[in-house]
């Protein structure tokens, strides 16, 4: 029998310092959902095609189903649960999604919101107002069967 080792990692999760011991081959999505019990991050295709599991690692949107959990060591993780809190009911991305009716069944929504958050921050840093095509490009990794994307794109457009 092969023995599988555990690894000690420390990271920041939604603003909180964390330390943990996890198996080598654990995926970030499993750490988030099964260990941390944060169920807002959704497992969709588990092969990087649908984007439902998108979270931010050091501000960049990634597929948590393809990310080895040990590699968040020393990094900052933001999940959908980390966007709002305290007095803020919604992050402005979430509020814009609500305002535009960009949520239907909701399964893709957390991933979509996280992808938009990363894109919004990147545009802010570069002082850039994206056009509709750039917005579509930023959403290419998130599959949505319900909305036809139109209202999601509208929601992003309204952020700038």
């Amino acid at each position, binding site marked *: 029998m*092969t*023995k*599988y*080792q555990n*690894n000690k990692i420390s990271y920041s999760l939604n603003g909180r310092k964390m330390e943990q011991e996890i*198996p*080598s*081959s654990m*995926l970030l999505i499993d750490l988030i959902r099964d260990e941390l019990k944060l169920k807002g991050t959704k497992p969709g295709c*588990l*092969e*990087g*095609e649908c*984007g439902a599991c*998108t979270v931010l*690692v050091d501000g*960049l*949107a*990634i*597929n948590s*189903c*393809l*990310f*080895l959990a*040990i*590699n968040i*060591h*020393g990094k900052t993780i933001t999940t959908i649960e980390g966007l709002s809190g305290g007095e803020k009911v919604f992050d402005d991305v979430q509020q814009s999604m609500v305002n535009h009716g960009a949520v239907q069944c909701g399964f893709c929504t957390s991933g979509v919101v996280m*992808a938009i958050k*990363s*894109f919004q921050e990147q545009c802010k840093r570069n002082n850039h107002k994206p056009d509709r095509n750039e917005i579509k*490009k*930023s959403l*290419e*990794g*998130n599959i949505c069967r319900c909305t036809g994307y139109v209202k999601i794109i509208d929601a992003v457009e309204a952020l700038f």
Partner: protein
Amino acid sequence: MDFNTITPQSTADLLNVIQANQENNFRFGAGYTDLIPELQIQNEKGLIVINLAQLKDHDFTEIKAEKSGIRIGALATMTDTLSEENLRKIPVMIEAIESLASVQIRSMATVGGNICTASPAGDVSCALVALNAECEILNVEHKTRTISIKDFFTGVKTTVLKKDEILRSVFIPNLECANRTLSGFIKIGNRNSMEIALASLAYHLMLDENGIVTNAGVAIGSVAKSIMFTETACEFIMGKNIGILSEADKERFADLVMEYASPISDIRASAWYRSQALWNMCKSIFLE
């Protein structure tokens, strides 16, 4: 999907780890965007993954402008590469990266991973072949060797890398004295994003002030066992004025490119389609 990982922090560590595991079954993991889906389907018992994601060595991670070209560390991500000012001047490279999967994948996937996966459909690899890039390979004795990326691939998912070697960087030689370029990456697929190329064409032609081709690099993907540099097509187009290319010349060029293609039929497309579409695309690049 169970495996053990070893996470070297320095190059010295890394080479020791590779040396120590010569008798073991190991894989390198960098961006994991290909490795994890592969291991999810086919878990190799007792596999060791040498995890490169935490390696702190600028030679592996940075993109540097050198006197005679641009060096991209194998662990630079696609997103890192896209934001590199010097690379933005090379359309074939930028278009290839932008056509690759999604924002999320590009933030994880590494340039070295794209090369070492050695997929015949590798987008960025195809651009690098057209650009005549050089692969810098490091072995466990700290020795390096350089090999043209054209000779790097030996077949579907196989490369010249030996078990005690690792790709450290890829070098794009200077595209000096080009007055202007005709450069781009065409990826043929059923939809506009999240595609594996049915066929792809990477081209980078340098032109003088009269529009005469002074240097040419053309590569094709997804139509052979590995990405192909189309040497004779490049030779043919050299010295020609692309502004006044005849229809016959364009067709000859396309025919010469196609001599390197031996596509297969699968559920994505037939061999006929891959050939026909690619031939058309070869002609289309001169429309610009």
